[in-house]
């Protein structure tokens, strides 16, 4: 059984073509800028918004979820799309996700991951995916721990695993003002991924005020210690210098 906090149809910004995105509940990190706090806990929880309360987190068997996704298979295939597994962190439920993928009707699979997982889990799902969106937030392990709650050892190790697996991937860097958008960090990311086999491009995701929108509904406080209203610095130069295609989203 797996637990899902949302299934979004016609997700136009989560990969190629028309896609359905599955948001898996539970994440090992606690990024200070995370916009999906309902994805933190791997348990169902009640969210209370102005429109009333609803329970977030539905359990599915792999058969059920695959059936639900396969229902749109014809449409997704005809439109160069497929299914995206996102979260939270889908690899926290790697076994479940792998089972679902095995039951899909020849659908293009995109894994959207933070990479903080065991190598075994990582390989289990990546080997079943057609494309990976791989988040790289901070290169400095201390900083990484400070802002996400864990250091980046596993993430960087899995990055190497990924580049040896013959699955194309896109590195995604959230640009949080004063945190990840520094020239130093961006240059370090570029240096780290330069020349990696399988790397297709880099997506820079400039932070936009508004990440805290759902915290109150989840019964949490959102108190970012970075300057929320500052404009993130968007500097694609180090990537271009490393011969990597860059998109700013």
């Amino acid at each position, binding site marked *: 059984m797996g637990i899902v906090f949302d299934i979004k149809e016609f997700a136009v910004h989560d990969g190629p073509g028309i896609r359905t995105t599955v948001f898996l509940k539970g994440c090992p990190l606690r990024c200070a800028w995370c*916009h999906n706090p309902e994805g933190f806990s791997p348990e169902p929880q009640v969210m209370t918004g*102005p*429109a009333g309360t609803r329970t977030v987190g539905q359990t599915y068997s792999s058969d059920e979820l695959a059936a639900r996704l396969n229902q749109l298979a*014809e449409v997704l295939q005809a*439109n160069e799309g497929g299914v995206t597994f996102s979260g939270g962190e889908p690899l926290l439920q790697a076994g479940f996700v792998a089972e679902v993928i095995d039951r899909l009707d020849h659908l293009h699979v995109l894994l959207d991951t933070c990479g903080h997982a065991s190598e075994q889990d990582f390989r289990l799902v990546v080997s079943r995916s057609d494309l990976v969106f791989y988040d790289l937030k901070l290169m400095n392990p201390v900083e990484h721990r400070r802002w996400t709650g864990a250091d980046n050892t596993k993430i960087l190790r899995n990055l190497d695993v990924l580049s040896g697996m013959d699955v194309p991937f896109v590195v995604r860097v959230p640009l949080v003002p004063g945190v990840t958008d520094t020239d130093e960090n961006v240059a370090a990311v570029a240096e780290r991924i330069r020349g990696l086999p399988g790397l297709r491009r880099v997506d820079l995701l400039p932070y*936009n005020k508004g990440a805290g929108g759902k915290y109150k*509904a989840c019964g949490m406080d959102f108190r970012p210690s970075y300057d929320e209203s500052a404009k993130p610095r968007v500097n694609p130069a180090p990537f271009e210098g490393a011969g990597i295609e860059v998109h700013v989203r």
Partner: protein
Amino acid sequence: MKERLEQMKCRVRDREHKSLRQDVKLDICEECEAEELSWPRRMARITEKMCEAERPVILPDEQIVFTRTVKGVPGAPMPKDVQARLDAEGKRTGWGAGNICCDWGMPLSQGLLGRREVAERTRHRLANDADAVEFLDAAIQTIDAVLGLVARYAEEARKQGRDDLVAILEQVPARPPRTFHQALQSHRFMHAAVWMSGSVHVGLGRLDQYMWPYLKADLDAGRLTTEQAEELLAEFFIGLNKDTDLYPGVQQGDNGQSLMLGGVTREGNDAVNPLTWMVLRVSHDVNMIDPKINLRVNRNTDIDLLTEAARLTRRGLGFPQYANDEVVIPGLAAHGYDLEDARDYTVAACWEFIIPGRGMDAPGAGAMSFPAATDKAIREGLAAGDTFEQILERTRLNIRQQVQAHVNRWKRSTVGVPAPYYSVLMTDCLEQGRDVTDGGAKYYNHGIHGAGSSNAVDALAAVKKFVFTEQSVAPDELLRALAANFENDEPLRQKLFNEGPKLGNDDSVNSLLTVLFDLFAEACEEIQDNGRGGIVRAGTGTAMYYIWLAKKPEEGDMAEPGVGATADGRHAGDFFSSSLAPSPGVKVRGPISILQAFSNIDYQRVCNGGPITMELSDTVFRDEEAVRKVAMLVRTFAMLGCQQLQLNTLNVKVLQDAKQHPERHRDLIVRVWGWSGYFCELDEPYQDHIIARHSFAL
């Protein structure tokens, strides 16, 4: 857009031309009676008086002229002998020509003088047919009136030293246009004169078809560049927005100036041409409510064309609206339309499928309330201890009863009000010597909107699940709650609303949608004659009925029945959805599931029109790639065999309403950053932030 056009648009928006309007109020009642004019002559007198009263307006920067200066169109009283005949037969007043579409290409290519010659010839041929002669004389009178007005415009142009315009006005609309520019000017006069004859909802039809030959000739001959052509077209479109405050409708803007693009020719060949693309581009640049763009598509339509159309959707104007040829054409053919005519379809004011020049259909002649039909069945059925099947049977009878009541009402008004000028522009009216409202057209069918289907499906599904399958709600418990509008039963209402299966989030209810529309189609098919020698078409639209039919029975002031609280957990008085959309406030899975759900209607039997209506947040359209995905969504609509689609881009008004009434907009998704959330789950400052962002988006 060029500065000249921007300024022109600003002036139209500011309604500066209002200051040019004359303070006259025409009244022709007395003279009609004194001269004992026949009915056709009375109607022709309207056109004549209006044309005579017009004062030519030529503004310095205009390339295409005509500005209306006379506000109200006078009415003409029905002649006493006609009135007496109706009274004797116990019939009401007549119906008029409106909400139809001219055969624009034909009068353009013949010129009004060409039409006049046709009228003369028929008059000669039918000299012994007094009615035909009277009609044709009236038609000729209207042609002369319009040409008289144009002559005065030419005079004014001469006075102003506008030789360019003099040359154009001496050619059109009297004679066939020699250029694209002339064709547009010709159309402007012919079209405006229909409004001036007292008709409403004057459609524009397949503009990319009938205008293309003129544009192509200009381009081929090197007389015109694409850029110049776009400028002319933009001016023509801006002109269509000029007098709209004088056009009657339910709301301003409800004026039927709809235009159809693409599709196939009457022979069945691909009809898309460079003008199809140009209209989409120009409409995007002009960015005004008229003309309302429609695009005919099929599963193989060029994705680049759909992308161009999606760019227009991004504008947030609520068009283009899409129609699927693969469904509509065979549907119309199955309803007795000749295949060539079916291939030539356009839309009436909103979405109803009609044939330009040949159709005098009345496709929006009332509505059948699905919620009223099912609610009555549920209440009476539960009280009588029915099974679910018996409730469906009651629903069948209720639908049938509503349809028949409609037809009986129409049958009381079987006399058409003559429309001599409109007839000039229709396909065979002058040729046959018959007015469009008196046998001159080919099709005289009626259409009924099937309104509120989602709430009706959800109500039936809730009863089926809770009362019959689970037996968790007792029949009298539900009946009491419905009668009291859930006053002391909020938990039950929540259960019905939140836990009941809903169209758009539970495929098990899709078959009920099929059943309801089949019953509706069956009731319509039973009618042999609508009183005008036509059939009755079942439709999927609502027009304003999604508000009107939601009134409580005791508040209703319409022929259609109202309805109280319903078993889907809807309070009395809450609106239904517009046309085809999940019930208001229901949390649905998403656009693809909605398309899939509505693909379950048998559109070969339900072919009056009425779009699946979807609202996209404008944040969906962040980049070109996303615009292309909206195009793919439209292709999916065609692929799934749906009939018609309206995509609206969300605007700030909706967001503000969502803030005030979150319960009505639970499904509203907004893009905040690299992510999306349900608008109503965001905290107030974030909602305000997004609203502010949308306010700045233009």
